[in-house]
């Protein structure tokens, strides 16, 4: 990703400008989305997760591949995937130093995420 590149998400009333690698995940709260940041802060946006996804794709292009949409309710930063437990439907996002967030996703989605990361790890 280009150094210094920022993701800028605007709504009619506010603006968030953040380096993509500082985003741990973005969750959906119905018509709202919440950015969970690496510094522990949470920022709520009055826009739906689909709009955030489209903004990432439009502004970052292929660099947006850093993020993976998981089902209807999550966009995660793949660099922070630390632990996947399919039977328990748990996904832990952590930098293994300062933060750890566990989120819930469907078994099938976690299975696909696991396969994707395995393939990438094996250079397939």
């Amino acid at each position, binding site marked *: 990703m280009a150094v210094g590149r920022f993701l800028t998400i605007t709504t009619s009333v506010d603006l968030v400008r953040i380096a993509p690698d500082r985003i741990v995940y973005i969750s959906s709260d119905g018509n709202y989305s919440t950015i969970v940041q690496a510094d522990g802060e949470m*920022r*709520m946006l009055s826009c739906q997760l689909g709009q955030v996804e*489209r903004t990432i794709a439009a502004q970052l292009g292929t660099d*947006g591949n850093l993020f993976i949409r998981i*089902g209807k*309710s999550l*966009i995660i930063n793949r660099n922070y995937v630390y632990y996947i437990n399919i039977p328990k439907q748990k996904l832990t996002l952590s930098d293994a130093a300062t933060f750890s967030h566990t989120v819930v996703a469907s078994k099938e989605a976690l299975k*696909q995420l696991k396969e*994707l990361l395995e393939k990438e790890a094996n250079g397939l």
Partner: protein
Amino acid sequence: MKELRELRDDEIRIVGGDRPRRNKRRPILWIASAVAAVAIAIAVLILVARGGQDTPTQPQHAPQTSIAIAPADTVQHLGRETDARAAGFTELIDTAINDVPLCLYIPHNASMTLHVGRLDKTDSTIVFAAQAADIRADNGGIVGAFVLAGEPLSWGLSKKGYCAVIGDTVTIGMADNSPLFERATETGGYFFRQYPLVSNGQLVENNPKGKSIRRAICDRQGEIMMVGTLDTESFHDFSQALVDLGVDQAIYLVGASSFGWAVDGSGMRHEFGNENTYTSGRHKMSDNISYIVWRRK
């Protein structure tokens, strides 16, 4: 901006990248469908090649049977479509999921708020009311964070499910910390906590055992509804029934004999629970008893 297909909960997609990664069984289904189509085409060709003289030709406009299958991503609300100018009411639907008899309460042309204290039963603007947050047995306080018209009345996390009302938007979810609490305080909104039952279409297990009349407030494809059991059920069976109903998010509402009512399209009032729970016997109504209240717009 490029349009993206709505994702299901069992799919993932690399943002700004390739197409969604679907369930691996689907390509097999597609291949099986293609093979079946080719086989049918060959069979038709053989029949045509045989001449078909002894086979009466079907009239071109013979009635045909067709089965309409809605795509999985299509939003299909359970409640009926109503005239937006009509007076508000609650649609009641009796159904059974997994042998769990349920009543669905779907408000139309109504908006939700919270209320603390005894409700006025004669308030004709109310089309649905049910108890919201639990009350502490020791001091009568509200269990968990609670915001009433922007004023925080209670703090703390004892149950991870939450329901927030910001403007006309009702949001149901599960989180340790929800920014919607602050949002509710900033915007004159409402917020309360209860047991989470369904999160993102997945069943959430809860500790309390035993069976009771259960109630919940649910979000199903954006349609907000209340659901009550007609028999006593366990938390697990109730949550499973909600999952099988297609509910995306659901949190508990006070069940058992807690009192409430719904007003249907003909103006008839349907009460549930026991109105006298707090006027007879040893129970005293807490000053902090809370209700979700849907009022006609």
